[in-house]
């Protein structure tokens, strides 16, 4: 059996989780990444920085987020007790802000006056624009043209917050292309620009620092489960785009072997075809966006177009720590299809009065399936990573309703 304590000490100094992670970028960015690693090493041990971060999470984001017992959902499913970790109640409506608060504080320490970010669903873009507004930083958000179309509400929110939203129409015009463009912009403006990456992927030290900033989710869940149930949950479920909400939930539980963990990828039209975004279920290791990780690539190494009804999961890669956790078998990676996610979206809305983000709906869909297989005295926690207001137009269009 793998030494799980050692697993929690990853990444190595060079940013590796076993064979995954690392730093695969062009030379121009290497020294900026070295500087960021050094800064983060220093500040992560600095009580003053931690206090500032904790203060912002409490008073600006509204943490801790509740661990809510979904009683009617539990009855509906008829299995394990289902709890929802309510990241949807955070300021700006998703877990993304936990990370942008942290990275914006880092940006402030570098003295760089500009921040950039890539975004898929727009949640990370909104969370970045929000902290930029609050700190008076100039903010540019890169977003695929396809995603701009399907997440109009968030685009407008970003603009209201004073951010410039750059439409990216190269490649597949989705999240991966937005990330390419953000990298290109960063190479050109590295002296005065801080890149706030939105998920636990990218070159070292991003996967580590994003995980650390999101780990508040799992730490709170642990504490809340002890308070409410007097014990740890039996299973954790989180959706996986790049993997930041999932690693934030999972990381504090890695050593707790009794806790089963499930990462839910976007199954799109089904894992049998190519129309999905499930690199951990169906992909192979490769290198993209600065790290070695599981990817969806063809036999020639070209990155494949992905599909998901949710923009935030529509990404061909995944954070490197998940690749490692898959290989050592500590986390199970599964998928939920578009249809399963849409069904779960409606179920949760109708019987709990909570409208989940389409991303989170993937976790809800699998969580319901899994809970049904478990005994009633078991506890399953679904990370409800975001709220669904941004997806109302998408869901209405799919249901044939004009609003």
């Amino acid at each position: 059996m793998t030494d799980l304590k050692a697993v929690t000490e990853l990444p190595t100094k060079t940013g590796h989780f076993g064979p995954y992670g690392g730093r695969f970028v062009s030379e121009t960015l290497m020294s900026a990444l070295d500087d960021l690693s050094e800064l983060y090493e220093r500040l992560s041990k600095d009580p003053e920085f931690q206090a500032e971060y904790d203060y912002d999470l409490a008073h600006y984001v509204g943490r801790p987020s509740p661990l809510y017992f979904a009683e009617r959902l539990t009855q509906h499913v008829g299995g394990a007790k289902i709890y929802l970790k309510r990241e949807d109640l955070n300021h700006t409506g998703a877990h993304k802000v936990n990370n942008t608060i942290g990275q914006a504080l880092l940006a402030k320490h570098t003295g760089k006056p500009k921040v950039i970010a890539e975004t898929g669903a727009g949640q990370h873009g909104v969370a970045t624009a929000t902290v930029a507004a609050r700190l008076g930083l100039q903010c540019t958000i890169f977003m695929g043209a396809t995603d701009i179309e399907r997440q109009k509400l968030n685009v407008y929110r970003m603009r209201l917050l004073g951010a410039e939203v750059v439409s990216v129409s190269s490649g597949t015009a989705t999240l991966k292309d937005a990330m390419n463009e953000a990298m290109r912009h960063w190479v050109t403006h590295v002296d005065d620009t801080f890149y706030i990456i939105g998920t636990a992927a990218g070159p070292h030290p991003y996967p580590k620092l994003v995980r650390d900033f999101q780990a508040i989710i799992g730490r709170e869940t642990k504490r809340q489960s002890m308070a409410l149930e007097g014990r740890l949950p039996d299973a954790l479920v989180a959706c996986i785009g790049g993997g930041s909400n999932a690693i934030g939930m999972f990381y504090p539980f890695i050593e707790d072997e009794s806790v089963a963990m499930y990462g839910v990828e976007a199954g799109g039209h089904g894992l049998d075809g190519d129309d999905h975004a499930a690199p951990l279920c169906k992909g192979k290791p490769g290198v993209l966006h600065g790290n070695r990780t599981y990817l969806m690539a063809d036999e020639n190494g070209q990155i494949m177009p992905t599909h998901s009804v949710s923009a935030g999961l529509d990404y061909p890669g995944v954070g490197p720590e998940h690749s490692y956790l898959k290989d050592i078998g500590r986390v199970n990676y599964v998928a939920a299809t578009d249809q399963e996610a849409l069904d779960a979206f409606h179920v949760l809305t109708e019987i709990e009065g909570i409208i989940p983000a389409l991303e989170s709906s993937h976790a809800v869909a699998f969580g319901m399936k899994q809970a049904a297989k478990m005994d009633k005295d078991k506890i399953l926690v679904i990370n409800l990573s975001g709220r669904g207001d941004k997806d109302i137009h998408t869901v209405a269009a799919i249901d044939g309703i004009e609003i």
Partner: protein
Amino acid sequence: MNRIDRCFKALKTTGKKALIPYITGGDPRPGLTVELMHCLVESGADIIEIGVPFSDPMADGPVIQLACERALAHNTSLRDVLNMVKTFRQTDANTAVALMGYLNPIEVMGYAPFAALASESGVDAVLVVDMPPEESADLSAALKSLGMQSIFLMAPTTPDKRADLICGQGEGYLYYVSVKGVTGSAALDVADVKANLDRIRSKTDLPLAVGFGIKDGATAAAVAKVADAVIVGSALVNCVARNVNDDALIKSELSGIMRQMRAAMDAAV
């Protein structure tokens, strides 16, 4: 001796500087690439950098992004580009060829099979844009065992400590990226480039090649005065982009720019 080392040694005796054109393999279509390579040699190339198209060229500006898209529209693969080099080698045994691209196609093929195929095809060196020396030990070893070299990048942002590391691992030539930015960026600042090259030269005897932002004869000449080699990419790829359906025009424009640069460089040194 490797063709690249031989090339720089020969140039040293004449006092001339190397001209290194870049084109993307398979652009505008796979059938034309070998002809374009010969055309580049005839119009003054010393070494050819041939790009392996990639779906996500993060370090490239729009010009080379579009070249990748044109090549990928024909499904041009790493294997195909190696085949192009092999065909080129049948009639040109002297001109050095460096493969330039992103890591994922090589990862997917596997380092050892890639090195074997590259060597068999007559490749002299490999430059992987998204693989800094810290990550390159295994690939470099696989290439070296078959007599091929690893080319590394240096940038204006490279601090001294990293420069030492890169100089220690570099082979063939060092590719100095003249501007902070992607390929096809605005013109470079020659004084700035000179200052950086002086700094690097104090650390290594490797030839120093300068790329990014060299678009015309005048810039090429100015760079030739301070560097050992001039790399030109987007300006050539633009000739392809402007004339995708006219092979003759692509060739005449390519050789036009090459000859202009060659003449300007030779006159300057």
